[in-house]
């Protein structure tokens, strides 16, 4: 999911004393979700899957960063990818957790355009596996007990974090768009508005809107473009939902994200040639 909430080169958005580096907020937050979710709602049937996915992601990152770039990378991104895979997927086997984590991290090193990776790593890995290996893997089936209180806590904390990381506009655009398209879908399908908006109240979406679509290295750099892309993700998801794709949000980001990145990087190159753009630090 999220690599680093604070984009490379951006100023620290907070003022005053920093009690924690903002780049570590997402891993801390997602770890808290995992731990509290497990001990209150038993979201991990056992520890093997999550340990394997985190371990596989970190190991892959270590090896590839060393082999390909000759340096050791900060592992918070790999940690988030691994933990995301462990939370967002389910399997009665262990190997899908390893494979998903490995291809998530590998996608960062292989699927690159103009020096930067274009897919959110865990979005790539999870989408690929859900599409290609449906007999071995499924998405998150835990719902925090369908209880409103944990949902509210996660929403409030999540919103606070994306606000602090200056990503609130992305999350807000997506959520508002989703609600808008839910209304349209309810008119088309004949199902109630609550039925259509219902997925948004579940934990899969909470993780999606706070960690996946806000990922700085795989989102476009311009604020207006970010809003447009978030809207387009919701729109493509709307189309996919009308075609009954259960994992529509993952697939929508999988389709829209890289296209947006390629266009953005291409436009940036043109502007750079005209001397109007700031060079993008490769991720």
């Amino acid at each position, binding site marked *: 999911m999220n690599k680093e909430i604070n984009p490379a080169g951006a100023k620290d958005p907070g003022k005053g004393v920093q009690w924690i580096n903002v780049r570590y907020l997402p891993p801390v937050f997602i770890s808290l979700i995992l731990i509290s979710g497990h001990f209150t709602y038993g979201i991990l049937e056992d520890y093997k899957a999550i340990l394997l996915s985190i371990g596989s992601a970190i190991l892959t990152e270590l090896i590839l960063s060393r082999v390909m770039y000759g340096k050791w990378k900060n592992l918070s991104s790999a940690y988030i990818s691994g933990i995301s895979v462990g939370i967002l997927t389910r399997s*009665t086997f262990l190997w899908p957790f390893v494979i998903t984590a490995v291809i998530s991290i590998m996608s960062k090193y292989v699927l690159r355009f103009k020096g930067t990776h274009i897919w959110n790593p865990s979005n790539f890995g999870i989408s690929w596996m859900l599409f290609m290996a449906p007999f071995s893997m499924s998405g998150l089936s835990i719902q925090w007990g369908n209880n409103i209180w944990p949902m509210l806590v996660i929403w409030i904390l999540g919103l606070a974090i994306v606000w602090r990381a200056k990503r609130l506009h992305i999350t807000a655009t997506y959520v508002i768009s989703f609600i808008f398209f839910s209304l349209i879908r309810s008119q088309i399908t004949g199902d109630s508005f609550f039925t259509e908006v219902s997925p948004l109240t579940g934990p899969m979406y909470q993780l999606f809107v706070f960690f996946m679509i806000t990922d700085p290295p795989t989102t476009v750099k311009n604020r207006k473009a970010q809003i447009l892309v978030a809207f387009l993700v919701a729109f493509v998801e709307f189309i996919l939902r009308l075609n009954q794709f259960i994992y529509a949000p993952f697939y929508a980001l999988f389709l829209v994200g890289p296209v947006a990145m390629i266009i953005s990087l291409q436009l940036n190159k043109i502007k750079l040639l005209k001397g109007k753009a700031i060079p993008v630090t490769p991720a």
Partner: protein
Amino acid sequence: MTDSSKQRLIKGSVTFTFVGILAGPALFNHFSENSPVREHAVAIESAMNRYGFYLRDVSKQSGVDFEHHSPVLDPLIEPIHPQIASMGASVSVSDFNNDGWNDFYVTNSSFGHRNALYLNRKDGSFIDVAGEMGVADLNKEGTGVSMGAVWADYDNDGYEDLFVYRWGRPALFRNNGGTGFEEVTENSGLPGWINANTAIWLDYNSDGYTDLFIGGYFREDIDLWNLTSTAILTESFEYSENGGRNYLFKNTGTGSFTDVTRETGLTSTRWTLAAGSADINGDGFPELIIANDYATDEFYFNDAGKNFSEIGKNSMIGFSPKSGMNVSFGDTYNNGKFGIYISNITEDGILLQGNNFWVPYESSEKVVYINAAGQLGIENGGWSYGAQFGDLNNDGFPDLYVANGYISGEPGTSYWYDYSKVTGGNTAIISDIRNWPAMKGRSQSGFQQDKIWINNGSGRFSDAAGNKADHENFDSRAVAFADLWNRGTLDIIVANQNNRLLVYKNNVNPENHWIAFELEGTTSNRSAINAIVRLYWDSKSQSQVVTGGIGFCSQNQRRVHFGLGNNTVADRVEIIWPDGHQQMIENPGVDRIHKIIESR
């Protein structure tokens, strides 16, 4: 090699590896056993050679033409009627007239459709005698529809009595010497209305009388034919507590029952679908395991017949919520310890809960279980309901049959997308029928094949679903094992929702031997429910428990059946009676049924 060519080589290698890994999952699925394209059909001869048995549907030849009908409920339920009305097909085996041949009772679930009691005519055929015996017409407006039935000699008169649980008024029938049944519900102390989906007989206080546990599904104040609200569904798909209450009725020994639910601590209100009882810790008092839909399962330790302590979470059995729909016991390792099989839901790519097989964790001083279903290869069933352990090929190791299939609607359609859309939502959304998209005849995990998993004796099970000469992919619910023709084999009866009952005759390799025991309690309850039988042969041993209902809405034959492989000698059998005392018989003869009366 230059740095740049070295770099290119590294990049090329990483890319090549990446592409290979991407292709891996698809290839795995294509070639794996789980792929739906794999054919399971096996010819009869090769089935016999490979697994030592095969099954043949003999329903029609044996005179069994029963068809189950789902209930028609309040019009407010209509949009998701197939989901709500998805249970009620049950089967319970008993020799109700004590002639030494197994008979069986099956339930229907729609007003005007009758339950059936199939009397074994000893010539290979059965005849429905429910009408003349007074146990047929139980699905009527005002009293509800049948969901299942269990047999036990609650009054210790030597004849098995019948309890029928319904979405409605429970019904107790006293067996009049095998010639008919008298309804005795009125003064029995049983409640007026329960939306029950499970009941089992057990002797929880080991006083020599069978007590009765009933598990509620919908709340007991809900009349599914006269709804006052559409908010009747589960409040959560994981930790729901708004289901029907459970009941434990203590048999007073005078023909009536006392509600001891509260004083024994069985006060949970989850959506109970199955229960099983066995003396797990060997203290002479049976434990109670409860499988719950939409919640964690429960494991109740029996404190000397006085009350129960719930240790589900600490034992791990009740740690993670799934969709518990079955409880059955199997000594799959032949080590004298019961594993507990709880069925759940597995739908490829959507919901991979996997069935659980809980085995005691040996090195722990605490009561801790680990889920060994994956390790044994008995995890991925489908939308699983009933499951039974029994030695289908008489090779000395208990095998497993799992009933699968939820709703077979229009072929090629699926309700899963709409289902997943709602289930992720908040309580206020999921609990109200109005928020659920209409099913409109669509399927959901329908047309699934039942699983037959054969224990190879070395810690793995093989899928032998092709061992049926006749394939039917009905929405199976209840499964019962019984030697229907006294041949020393376990035949199988499968009750299917909204479809016909299937009776599978089991044809077993004649080189394998067997032995069976029919117990009769004297100081213990006469049905010997909760007795444990442990057989020793050829340096092996295996334990089985006599149950008063096991699986999902089902009851196996009362006698316990052991396969012996090609051994012609059984060393000894130990019987631990429900009141705790033991009885041993040396060298019981093989290939025969032993009638054992409890020694005083």
